[in-house]
């Protein structure tokens, strides 16, 4: 991303990189901003607007400003007229038009968030999911939908993970968390496991949902969410190479490995809002294990695969 167009951001990056002892997480978000090449000029200008007149002297400042951008330009209420930047015409270059609309998509959701304004408790939700109690699940979905804005939803396809899910059995929440790079689900040893829902719906349902304003699928960029060290931008393929022409989003796999051959990239996309229905609630489970991989190593393995896949040895170069 041309951070040079946002002087305060650029200055922060320069200063931070010169600092010794930069954490892997902070390094990751800085690298992501530098590597990102899918944010067009118009969008970058809007992003830059939130930096106007603000100083960026720490990653806290950077986080706060990107959060402001997200709240202002991505996390749009269904009742508001604007559409999230991700699905705006000036991000059309990243649109993903070619997914078969019969495919199932999977998305992991935090039950704590889903229940925030709900009229049921988690025990009732678990029972309802287990017994497929339509009345309770409908009520749950209705109040949850009221809470959900139109921010881009990170998801994957069922076919991308069905073998992983099958092998994982009851451990699917931990496995899927790792494979999709959902590192913010990371319970430390003294806390209770985090209840999560696995939502399943079709591509066609996303495209048909008018509550989103502009239904669609997009390859995610670094500014399609909060400042997240587990995100990794996806490069454009080299123009004159044999690299795959059809581009997709790639998630950092957090399963702890140390070699290139062991590492497998995850697959991710973002899509527009879909109003959940009871039949979309596929599974309820719990993320119980803390992350144990080394983020710096995993990111380096991920980068190597991306460079290979896109035939872009220059991508991510210092």
């Amino acid at each position, binding site marked *: 991303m041309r951070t040079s167009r946002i002087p305060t951001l650029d200055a922060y990056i320069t200063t931070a990189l010169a600092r010794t002892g930069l*954490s*892997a*997480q*902070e390094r990751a978000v800085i690298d992501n901003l530098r590597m990102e090449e899918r944010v067009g000029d118009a969008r970058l200008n809007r992003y830059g607007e939130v930096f106007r007149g603000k100083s960026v002297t720490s*990653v*806290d400042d*950077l*986080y*706060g400003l990107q*959060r*402001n951008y997200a*709240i*202002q330009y991505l*996390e749009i*209420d*269904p009742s508001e007229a604007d559409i999230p930047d991700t699905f705006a015409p000036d991000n059309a270059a990243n649109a993903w038009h070619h997914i078969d609309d019969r495919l199932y998509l999977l998305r992991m959701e*935090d039950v*704590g*968030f889903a*229940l*925030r*304004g*709900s*009229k*049921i*408790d988690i025990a009732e939700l678990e029972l309802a999911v287990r017994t497929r*109690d339509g*009345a*309770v699940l409908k*009520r749950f979905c209705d*109040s949850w939908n*009221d809470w*959900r*804005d139109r921010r881009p939803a990170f998801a994957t396809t069922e076919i991308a993970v069905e073998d992983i899910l099958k092998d994982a059995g009851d451990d699917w929440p931990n496995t899927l968390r790792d494979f999709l790079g*959902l*590192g*913010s*689900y*990371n*319970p*430390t040893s*003294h*806390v*209770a496991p*985090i209840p999560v829902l696995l939502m399943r719906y079709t591509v066609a349902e996303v495209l048909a949902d008018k509550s989103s304003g502009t239904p669609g699928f997009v390859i995610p960029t670094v500014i399609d969410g*909060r*400042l*997240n*060290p*587990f*995100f990794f931008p996806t490069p454009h393929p080299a123009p004159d190479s044999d690299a795959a022409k059809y581009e997709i989003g790639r998630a950092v796999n*957090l399963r*702890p490995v140390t070699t290139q051959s062991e590492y497998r990239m995850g697959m991710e996309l973002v899509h527009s809002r879909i109003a959940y229905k009871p039949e979309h609630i596929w599974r309820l489970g719990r993320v119980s294990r*803390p*992350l*144990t*991989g*080394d*983020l710096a*190593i995993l990111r380096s393995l991920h980068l190597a695969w991306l460079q290979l896949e896109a035939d872009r040895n220059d991508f991510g170069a210092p």
Partner: protein
Amino acid sequence: MANMNTTPDPATQAWLDDFAAEPLPALDRLLMGKVWLGGYAAAEVPDALPQFLPIALHDTLDAALLDWLKQQLQTSETPPGVNAKIYAQALVDAFALLQGFDLPQTRAWCAEQVTSVWAWLKVQAAFRTRDPRPVFLRALALAQPDRKLLPFWMMLCRHGVREEAELALFGLRRMPKDDQGEVERSLPRALIQGFLDYGRAAARGDDSRKKEWLGEVDFLTAVYPMRGDQWASAFRVGMARRSPPKRLRHWLDERYPAANQEPPRTSHAAPLKGLYWDEDIQPLLGRFDRNPQMVSPALRAKLDEYRHYARETGDSYFLVRTFTRLGEYLLNQAPHTQTPRDPEWALDLGQEAALWEPSNHYSWALVARALNALGDWTRARAVFWYARRRFPHNPFSHNQLGHALAMRGLVDEGEAIYRQAIRRFPDDPVCWSDLAHTLRVAGRHEQAVAVYREAQVFFHKNQVLACGLTGVLIDLGRADEARAELEWAYQLSNDSINDQRTLADLRHRLDAIEAGRPLPWKRTLPAEERSLGDFSNLNGLVGIDLCPMPALGLVGLWRNANDLQRARSALSGLARFPASDVERGLILVHSKGWAVTRDFFRNSVQRYPGDGCTQVHYQRARARAGDQVDAADWNSLRGRFEEFAPVIRIEQNPAATMPAALTDNDAEQDADSELSVWMYRAGASSRRDLIEEDFLAARQIA
């Protein structure tokens, strides 16, 4: 490089260190989105924090969150430099923390201050997906150690706003069986009552909300699996003492028709004992004055039965009406002592009634009068002014304030109150007769005569006015005029015992004055500041600070009387808060015109983005300043602040028809409905602006 878990995330650890050292600032920065939590940054704060906050810091979080909330509640303004949406998110996150952690101090404080927190939240900016109110309600519902929130849940059910009522029903579901925290393991009676009260509100007018209400029936059926006849019985018992409107019964027919039929002979349901004023209370009052020490314990025991019924069923209807009626009795003078029977007890009853039904005018009238009778003018005055602001559609709230002011020697203020009540209720002779009567007992007899004469121009054949005028003429010793007026009163009288008694008394007084024995006049009391307690209890009942009510009321009073100097003087002592800003803005209309007023309200909207009253005033000012205000502007405002719909609709069309919900004679109408009816009826009248301002002020504190 360290792995991701064995060593805490450095960003997370840095915040934990800050939090341990300075909890409140660290929590504030976190909630305001100024802290990057490293690996947890993609999660919302309430989802991230439970994953890494050590148990040893949970108490610290409890104390810090409590301090943070107290700090927020000190002002209605969005913190400087913070976007309204971001602040709304911070509030959502704060209450979501209360859902996710066991924070007993904060929870207890929120429950204790529930009315205040709720009132404050209602003027905060909220967005559909960032609304702190449901999160707050759910946080309260989830961890209830006792049944203290029952009146609050029932109030939300009666109010009938879908989202709030559903969460209130959730609160009733989660409420323990008793105050010791025993888990409720059956269908709570109060839940059925809350459900019926919600239905009473939903069924006003038409069937448009039938699906919504039946959806709730279906949901409850799923949550409490029972036989159909058991559900029918539960509803039948719930409806036994206070029948719901026919429409609600018809709705219920679609699920449990047996609920509307006689119970089967084999029914074992044992309804709570019925309570009836005529049977339970009246016989005791008949003996009260002869032996209050003997009767009081029996009376208190009866009241306990009302309390028990309300606590078990959640139905406070009978409690409120009985307590206010009994309170009035206790405030009246005993025939032998010529002093109020027991104003302290009356005050307790009034406050208890107000706790259960804060929107019941009689409760507040009783509280104000009881305080006044106790000599607590400081608090009485505040409650009188509050009642006038909260219930402007009720002439009594104006008249009793006017009377109280005059009886404290503030006759000019009292008269101004009455004069403005007359502007609001030009067809109501009571405002006139009360004004004249008040002037008379305040010793301003000539003025009283003038008012009676003035009133008789409009209500020539009003017997109360004729009697009142006769009385004051007798006071003045103008026997001939009094005799002529008494004759007129006789012509207007009917054969009722009361009428005949009044006329006989007047005849007796007239005879006495002719014999040279005039009766004494009532003396006024000084309007000195005197309080027997602080405002905390009263503020807790209304959810706002009552202290500024008199000054706030005086600003509006003098502004509407075109006495801007006195209005400004009253305003000068007021701090800035949404209601005082409205007054500040409206004063500008008189001196600077609507364009300046519009600009003022534009700034107020920035200052209080969640205050619907301010928003509507801004839009009104724009329209009056000649700005183009189109339907989309009004509709957008209505979408956010439905409770202001009557003014918004009338602004768009002064002849707007009243919604069916307000004209449904079969439905129970509460104070809020009556206020709306009053507003709609004034839409096309010359009183519109005055009543719109009253309506907005009332809704602002409702």
